[in-house]
């Protein structure tokens, strides 16, 4: 069995490659459609339990979004009154 020529190999890779890509993504279209229907019918999402323990540690350098909300609301009122 002699080695196929480089051009033959190149074309082979092209055909196989596009074939696999299309087969894979086409199957993914079907899988996704089915999955979406199943998920939305059988198990409508409930909120997950709050992450326990160590997840509760506040994020690095984060600013309390609540505080920012309060502040910016206050500023808005402030401006509104200024007009």
């Amino acid at each position, binding site marked *: 069995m002699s080695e196929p020529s480089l051009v033959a190999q190149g*074309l082979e*890779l092209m055909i196989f490659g596009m074939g696999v890509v299309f*087969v*894979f993504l086409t199957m993914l279209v079907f899988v996704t459609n089915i999955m*979406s229907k199943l998920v*939305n019918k059988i198990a409508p999402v409930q909120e997950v339990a709050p992450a326990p323990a160590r*997840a509760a540690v506040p*994020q690095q350098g984060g600013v309390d979004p609540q505080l920012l909300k309060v502040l910016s609301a206050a500023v808005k009122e402030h401006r509104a009154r200024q007009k």
Partner: protein
Amino acid sequence: MQSLINLWHDTGLYHMESGQVIMMLVGFLMLYLAIKKGFEPLLLLPIAVGTLMVNIPGAGLGWSAAEAAIRTGDASLLAQFRDLFSLAADATVHDVLHAYHNAEATLYKKALALGAGAGFDNGMLYTFYSVTIASGVAPLLIFMGVGAMTDFGPLLANPKTLLLGAAAQFGIFGTVAGAVLLTDAGLMDFTMQQAAAIGIIGGADGPTSIFIASKLAPELLGAIAVAAYSYMALVPLIQPPIMKALTTENERKIAMVQLREVTKGEKIVFPIAVLILVALLLPSAAPLLGMFCFGNLMKESGVVERLSDTSQNALINIVTIFLGLSVGYKMSSDAFLNGSTLAIIVLGLIAFCVGTAAGVLMAKLMNALTKDPINPLIGSAGVSAVPMAARVSNKVGLESNPQNFLLMHAMGPNVAGVIGSAVAAGVMISYFG
């Protein structure tokens, strides 16, 4: 006095070769593109600095302990290397280096041990390259971080846009065929592996390109990475003419149906579904798509926000710094200044154009076959280059119809393109494995 001479011999000027000068100019050009033109600066800036550093004459930042020993060791040490590689007693430093660079794995490791045993150290960039790229780890971690940044919502709302992401991969495989034909015509001299590694540029995905090049053709990695990131930055220039040439004004005006709301549950299950499909059909794509899905699952599950945040920020940033510098290691003048690089630049551009065209044509085909209208402009987004390519679709669309916002519609094929090129990468690993 001898020390003074040593010092002069240690200056860069004394050792500077023309190739290194040219490569430094290439480095400056990349800096210019990154800083002034905003070409993918997150990668191009570190690559540029890596290029400058690796080409500093005599600094040896890209030398392994073995290469340092061969280049700067004494005669008896050189003789040991000659013996190791079974070279004749009159083999020059250049011959020994050539034998070293082409040695198979076991001999290569022996050479490293010989150099290290003689007290030489690996250069910084060589170390970075070994740890991040040669191990394959860095591109995978980038993929994880990108997964944690990706929103599959638009894709889930309209799954058939996955086919646009499939079609655009023709840029990859068409280019492989092109490289092979060039070689057959005697114009170039690429192996199949090299052709495949060049083709992957058409995937418009930096980490995938680096991952595949490091496995199939590490000698071309520098040029491939630079080409991939440069063309990704040039998407707004490359794609519009092709998109306009292949579509009519009326096609470009097509308004698409509003995307439906996607539930949290779908978003959580989707990466798992992709992973299952990978497991069943294409295990060779498991590293890339596995890490991508892992990152996305961390994001969408909502229960590990700390991990998701870190993989999108500190971790991906750290890896990007090292990845960029490490690519610089492959930007030495021997590796870069040859005909291959020119061919890579030309073929990479062709790959982008072909991928863009294939995506647009596929969209037109789908439009002909299905009911819901598809604006063919979103087909070009199938090449990846997230989110640049989707923005280009939107912009070209707005030119024809100022009321038609295609951005969200184009995000579907855009992220499908990432999956598509990872699948293509899996095919190549499987084919050559």
